[in-house]
């Protein structure tokens, strides 16, 4: 299964999104929160994201969901710091972080490929509330 990493400036936001998406995911689906700074402050930490990506990978690749601004730059730096083999199997989704993570978790849980899971996450941008 494709692993999913949720990057937010807030540790609580990242953990909450993983909790919510986990309800929809199959047992064993990797959903790893990488939010906030080591000292608990608001922010993003590329090393924390890198470790989360490595932990989320079970061989089928990892989709990284990001919130705002520096989350994108930190996630890109984290991907650059991965070893070459894993780097080629990681994608950063250009998607709404909550809806995208829920949709991606469902898709990943049924064994879809990284390309499919990423497209599903990005497709969540068009989800209507009513």
């Amino acid at each position: 299964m494709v692993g999913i990493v949720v990057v937010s400036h807030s540790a609580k936001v990242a953990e909450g999104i993983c909790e919510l998406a986990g309800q929809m995911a199959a047992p064993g689906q990797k959903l790893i929160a990488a939010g906030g700074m080591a000292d608990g402050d608001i922010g993003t930490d590329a090393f924390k994201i890198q470790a989360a990506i490595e932990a989320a990978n079970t061989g089928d690749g990892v989709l990284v969901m990001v919130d705002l601004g520096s989350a994108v730059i930190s996630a890109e730096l984290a991907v650059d710091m991965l070893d070459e083999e894993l780097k080629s199997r990681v994608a950063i989704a250009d998607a709404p972080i909550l809806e995208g993570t829920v949709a991606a978790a469902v898709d990943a849980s049924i064994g879809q490929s990284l390309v499919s899971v990423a497209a599903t996450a990005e497709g969540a941008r068009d989800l209507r509330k009513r």
Partner: protein
Amino acid sequence: MANGIAAMEALADVIIANKEKLTELDAAIGDADHGINMTRGFEAVRTKLAAAKPEDIGGLLKLVGMTLISTVGGASGPLYGTAFMRAAVVAHGKTAIDTDTAAQILNAAIGGIKDRGKAVRGEKTMLDALEPAYEAFTQAMAKGASLTDCLTLATAAAASGVEYTKTIIATKGRASYLGERSIGHQDPGATSSYLMLATLTAFAKEQEA
């Protein structure tokens, strides 16, 4: 290597001393955290420097870069972190900085910021201070100027670059949400870049004296 560590401590001092100013600048056009984030990063740098014994300037710059990446929190963390990490590659194995090495370090740092931020000059960013500084540095170097003279001219160009950021619209980062309302405000990232360059210049002059 004591000099290199002292130079990095001087950078930490100037950023921490300007915490309020950088945050005020960021409050006008961004999310009011540049001074806070950079101070958190450089306080961590200061702690790391106290314990570390880097063997060369490359190791020293890498330590600073890694620390900024993991502690700053905002976009300036990966941006300055990448700048220091790229500079570290150039300075690998060196225990002193000559004019040519300084130019290469500045060029590598700028390349890191451009790659990481996908930015170019004229977008109201750090690059509006750093690229003119690099040009002034290399022009002076080509005329045979000393390291301190090159740095002095580079710092003056960076100061002009910071002034220039008041006249342009931000197209990167949080400030881009403001569009034309970002005109009239100087960029906090360009300001912190200028402060670091000015500090290294003053440090080099003290070494020479």
